């Protein structure tokens, strides 16, 4: 009887946990008077550049336990074509990861552990989240508790994506799963001419991690420059 009671309690606790998890809620968006916030949707496009750009960042990666590592990230994206070309390399210039995302992710080079299963799609999804505007349906817009403008979009794989634009020009992005649990949280600060000097991304879930992208350079690129060109073999005599 005692064993049954203990077992029953465990089941009850488990059910309560499942119930609580299923009750996770997305942050509240309050509707706004159009005369106060005239163009919420327009403001929510501000974090995303309209033309192809090349960004070079130093990326500080924080691992569980407080250890950190630094790499260089190069990202070229075309918001019209929805394409991304991303390269990660060491400070010494050794390329660890090189992939393009058009209709699907194509990995040009991946050194272990960057060749791990599912690394490339997850990594490119993070890059997409930072640089490309959500292409899903706009579900809601308004302001959050802090008074920042928020637009809620239907994200990929049934996720929900909130784009949050603060009055000081900084912005954030939050992605939630279907249970409304936070998957990614992005914060962009030191924004000048729509280009953030610093972007922080935190990943939640099974493996938590954080990336701190410090801007080295940002420059517009032509569509042709974003296309793959035949490689030039360096001349040893140079």
């Amino acid at each position, binding site marked *: 009887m005692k064993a049954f009671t203990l077992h029953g309690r465990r089941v009850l606790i488990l059910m309560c946990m499942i119930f609580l998890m299923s009750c996770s809620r997305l942050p509240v968006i309050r509707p706004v008077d159009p005369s106060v916030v005239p163009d919420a949707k327009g403001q929510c496009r501000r974090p995303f550049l309209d033309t192809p750009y*090349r960004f*070079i960042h130093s990326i500080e990666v924080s691992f569980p336990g407080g250890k950190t590592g*630094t790499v260089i990230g190069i990202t070229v994206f075309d918001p019209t074509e929805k394409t991304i070309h991303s390269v990660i390399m060491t400070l010494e*210039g050794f390329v660890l990861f090189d992939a393009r995302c058009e209709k699907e992710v194509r990995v040009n080079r991946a050194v272990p552990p960057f060749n791990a299963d599912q690394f490339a799609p997850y990594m490119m999804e993070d890059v997409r989240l930072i640089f490309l505007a959500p292409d899903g349906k706009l579900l809601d817009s308004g302001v959050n508790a802090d008074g920042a403008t928020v637009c809620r979009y239907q994200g990929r794989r049934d996720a929900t994506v909130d784009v949050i634009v603060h009055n000081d020009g900084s912005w954030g992005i939050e992605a939630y799963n279907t249970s409304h649990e936070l998957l990614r949280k992005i914060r962009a600060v030191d924004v000048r001419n729509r280009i953030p000097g610093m972007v922080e991304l935190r990943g939640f879930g099974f493996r938590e991690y954080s990336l701190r992208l410090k801007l080295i350079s940002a420059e517009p690129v032509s569509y042709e*420059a974003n296309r793959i060109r*035949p490689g*030039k073999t360096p001349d040893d005599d140079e």
Partner: protein
Amino acid sequence: MEYMMENRAKRYVLLVGILCSCAFILAWVNTWEDIRRESAKITSVSAQFSQQKHMQILTKPLVSKGLFYFQTPDSVRWEYTSPIKSVLLMQKGSIKRYTQGSRGLVEDASGSLESMQIVLQEIGRWTRGQFTENEHFSATLKGGKGARIILTPKEKGLASMISRIVITLSPDRQGVIKSVKIIESEGNYTLFEFNDVQINRKISETLFREVG
């Protein structure tokens, strides 16, 4: 999603330092014997370097700059001053790397015992001018003024990361290299160029121990 570099990548990173450090021991050479003889004369090197990364994704190379110090038998300081401050220190069997981050100059998580052992092995060989005995690379010497040494990986694993390495010696100044080019694949290579090279000058031992 962990970006922790594993052994092969670490080996590359460290090889860059080794190649650049040990290549300074070269001189006007025509034969491997010349290299061995000249290498015996070098006790220390200090230099400024520029690193140009050429890739298809870049329309112009990404340039990094820094300082380099080497003291026989195995002390190295490989320091980037821009665009990211980072210091790699190797001394007496110990290797550490510090990079400027949100918490200041902090130790990088990519060091390992295995890479340290490789470093020491390589330094020992190269400082003795033993290019031809290298277990990782086959070496070809194109001698004369402005000679070049071309290194080709022996291992399949390393060859998948590095196609070849070309070390070009200064045609004007004995004992000084002009550049080291590490070619990873078509259109993807890193060029290290050195200037203000000082040979056999006294270098403070603390430079190999302390970051600041």
